């Protein structure tokens, strides 16, 4: 009996106390001293737990993200490789485009019927200076036709099959081209030299040829049209017999970089050497 009265009175006391506190509490925004102390005590713990919680969450997310990032990284690496490859192909196409545009300019400039051919192989032995192109008799390419690039003369077709032709380069001693010094109009015979480059022989002693003079085709050999650049004079010297001058000539064409050539398709009788007149007109 006594026990139940005590319990009821405790409950009533707590409820009454709670009501008193509730009804007597002010609506002030500032915390009182007790609440302030409580906050001050709790704050470091709260901060620590909260920070730890964030850290754990970051680590967890980081782990999950890392897996995703790894996958993304693999995809991006593949993408970069693909783009790099595409870029290389596009650059190669761009360069090819520039070269072909130059050849087309050349085609328009010389006003001779011509065929663009691709270089597909080089001399098998290495003792001679020749290369092979992917055009032959079927395309109208025949022996003795001139091969040029945008810079100037490359060589002459020496053999042709139905679909492949062999081009003898001007740096081979077997090929001779009738040339002139562009400035003085002196004539000479240019052929390849084992010393490297070409030699322009049989130049007149009175010729004022000097280094850096430009050498062009004369058009007198019936093979090469007139005034196509061939090279630049590097050095002038007396010939072995002393009767003539001879000039060492640096070819204008860089043979290691030639990928396409323009074959000037001429009649077998040779060119009409007057500039601007096509052979097949």
């Amino acid at each position: 009996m006594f026990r139940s009265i005590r319990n009821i009175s405790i409950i009533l006391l707590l409820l009454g106390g709670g009501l008193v506190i509730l009804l007597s509490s002010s609506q002030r925004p500032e915390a009182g001293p007790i609440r302030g102390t409580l906050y001050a005590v709790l704050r470091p713990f709260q901060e620590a737990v909260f920070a730890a919680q964030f850290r754990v969450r970051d680590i967890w997310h980081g782990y999950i993200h890392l897996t995703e990032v790894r996958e993304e990284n693999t995809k991006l690496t593949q993408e970069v490789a693909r783009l790099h490859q595409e870029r290389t192909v596009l650059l190669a196409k761009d360069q090819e485009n520039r070269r072909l545009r130059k050849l087309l300019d050349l085609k328009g400039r010389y006003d001779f019927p011509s065929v663009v051919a691709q270089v597909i192989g080089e001399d098998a032995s290495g003792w001679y200076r020749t290369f092979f192109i992917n055009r032959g008799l079927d395309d109208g390419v025949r022996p003795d036709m001139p091969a040029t690039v945008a810079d100037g003369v490359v060589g002459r077709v020496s053999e042709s099959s139905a679909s492949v032709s062999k081009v003898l380069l001007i740096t081979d001693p077997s090929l001779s081209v009738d040339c002139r010094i562009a400035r003085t109009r002196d004539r000479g015979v240019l052929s390849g030299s084992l010393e490297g480059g070409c030699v322009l022989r049989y130049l007149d002693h009175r010729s004022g040829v000097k280094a850096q003079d430009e050498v062009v085709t004369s058009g007198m050999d019936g093979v090469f049209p007139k005034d196509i650049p061939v090279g630049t004079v590097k050095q002038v010297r007396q010939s072995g017999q002393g009767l003539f001058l001879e000039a060492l000539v640096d070819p204008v064409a860089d043979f290691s970089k030639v990928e396409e050539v323009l074959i000037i398709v001429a009649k077998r009788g040779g060119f009409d050497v007057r500039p601007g007149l096509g052979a097949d007109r």
Partner: protein
Amino acid sequence: MRDLLFVVAAGFVVLILQTTSLAFAVSPEYKPDLALILVVWAALRLDFLVGAGFAFILGMTVDMLSGSRLGVFALTYCAIFLACAHMHTTFQVDSPIGRVIMALVGCLVAGAGVAVIRWVEGPPGFGWNALLWLTAKPIITGASVLLVFPALERLHSGYLRVAGTY
């Protein structure tokens, strides 16, 4: 017959390499003469008749794929084959150094032959560069023997294992 097939296939590969990709590694002037190395290999490993015929045909093909007159390399390779086969049968020359020397001398002979023909045809403009060319190419070819010969031996033995099962 089996050897002939092998050597014809090898010759085909060598010619493709010689006319296309070899110049990517070495300047065209100094690229090693792989066809000549194949001829030396044939002289040491193949039946005389098969080897001699092969050397001639390979030389003729090289003639067609270069600026030389038809027959220059056919005769040169045949002569080199005969000399190497003779050295092999008489003095049993088959050491790595011996092979290198055979290829080096063979290449020197080929180069000298080409130079003589050029000299007969017209003024080729000999000079230091030509001398360098005539000496450097044989040295590079000779050194290449150390790589090409073992590769050929391996390919040949592999081929014989496969061909032998049929």
